[in-house]
């Protein structure tokens, strides 16, 4: 049994609610001992104010029962910044690779929370077990590499409304997402959407 349960080790708290700074962070994990048969999900949601209310959701997960996204993927919801929802498929050879990517996700979440330090100093240390998370930089690089492989092989998939080109442009202007996905990767996404938006083709040889 391989245990996929990381929040109990790497997070001090699963709900952070500071009325003074109006920052709310929610961490939700659906743990599993059996990822071949069960869903797994680690979701982080942030709410804060910055000229307007900014609401962002990040997730690494798979859903074993759905037709869509039943493979491991990253999911981002950036509706308040006009990017909407987008997904990035991840491919792993083994469960250990999947675990490594989840740890890489937690490392990247550290960077997300560090961005909020300007509104609430000490928030990162409050939410994360920093002594452990700081040592996950290699896993962070692994996830960036997996993102790169995914962009090369599959498209970064945007939810089907609005103008995709505008969303790609917004992606390119969002420093947090550039930091999370990797600058090279965001450039590749922009380049791939720059070509004529392709029809879905299957060529049966």
């Amino acid at each position, binding site marked *: 049994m391989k245990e996929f349960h990381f929040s109990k080790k790497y997070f001090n708290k699963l709900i952070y609610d500071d009325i003074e700074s109006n920052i709310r962070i929610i961490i939700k994990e*659906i*743990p599993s*001992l059996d990822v071949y048969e069960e869903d797994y999900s680690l979701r982080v949601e942030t709410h804060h104010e910055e000229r307007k209310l900014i609401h962002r959701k990040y997730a690494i997960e798979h859903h074993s029962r759905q037709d869509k996204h039943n493979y491991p993927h990253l999911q981002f919801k950036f509706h308040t910044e006009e990017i909407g929802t987008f997904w990035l498929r991840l491919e792993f050879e083994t469960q250990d690779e999947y675990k490594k990517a989840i740890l890489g996700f937690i490392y990247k979440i550290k960077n997300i929370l560090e961005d909020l330090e300007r509104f609430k100093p000490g928030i990162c240390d409050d939410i994360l077990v920093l002594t452990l998370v700081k040592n996950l930089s290699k896993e962070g690089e692994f996830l960036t590499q997996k993102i790169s492989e995914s962009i090369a092989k599959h498209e970064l998939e945007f939810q089907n409304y609005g103008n995709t080109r505008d969303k790609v442009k917004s992606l390119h202007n969002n420093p947090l997402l550039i930091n999370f996905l990797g600058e090279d990767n965001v450039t590749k996404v922009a380049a791939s959407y720059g070509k004529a938006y392709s*029809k*879905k*083709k299957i*060529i049966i040889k």
Partner: protein
Amino acid sequence: MRAKTSSITICQPKIEMFKYDYTSIPSILNIFKMENQEHYRKELISGKRNIKVDIKTWNALRNLKKANDTFNDVILSLLKERTVAIGGENLKAIKYSRRKVFLETEYDYKPIGAEFEYNDVKQEQANFNLDVKIKKIFYGKKIMNPSEFFGVDSIRKHFNHAFLNIYLKCVVLALEKEFKAHTRMIFDKDFENITRWRKTYYEYSLSEDSFINDIEEPLRLSEEKPDQKIIDSIKKSPSNSIWNLVK
């Protein structure tokens, strides 16, 4: 609303002009060497065809693709799964679709719900395996993966009495739905009585394979002693705090 479709572009058979090194050409039909020119005309025997699929099917095929697979590979492997030939004998591999059902029940007087799946056996009474898998547990105000709730994964369910009991209740429900088989099992202890199960399978002429794999094996394995890691995992699980399964 018109379903979205993906249109496919396929190469049609056509005459191609290629520049070849004559000495390296493999033996293909209808190769001509033009006098004083290095162009050859080759008639392609094209095995390519057009198919039109809707977006949902396209996504489903794409999800089945492994790292270096083509769509052609995916479709071929789906076709291959229908029959497998081994050394002259044909073995029929039956691929079932899965049915999803919800069970509302109790264990030791505490209400619990389970969302589970099993093979859609389509009334194949004599020859089936249910392969019941519990996907989600509903208890109190929470929904959990069964491994989180019970502290063990599905293949080790026999180590947790509550997990095994709920699993067997799911099997009862599946048999009722598929074959209108009434087991008449009411109390929790009834479900762990193999004689009652055997009687049901006889009465309704149900598959011997299913009896062995779906019933007999988990009951037999529940007598096995788990190792300490498994005991500790069950101890820490919500199911143990509710039912005190492990002292």
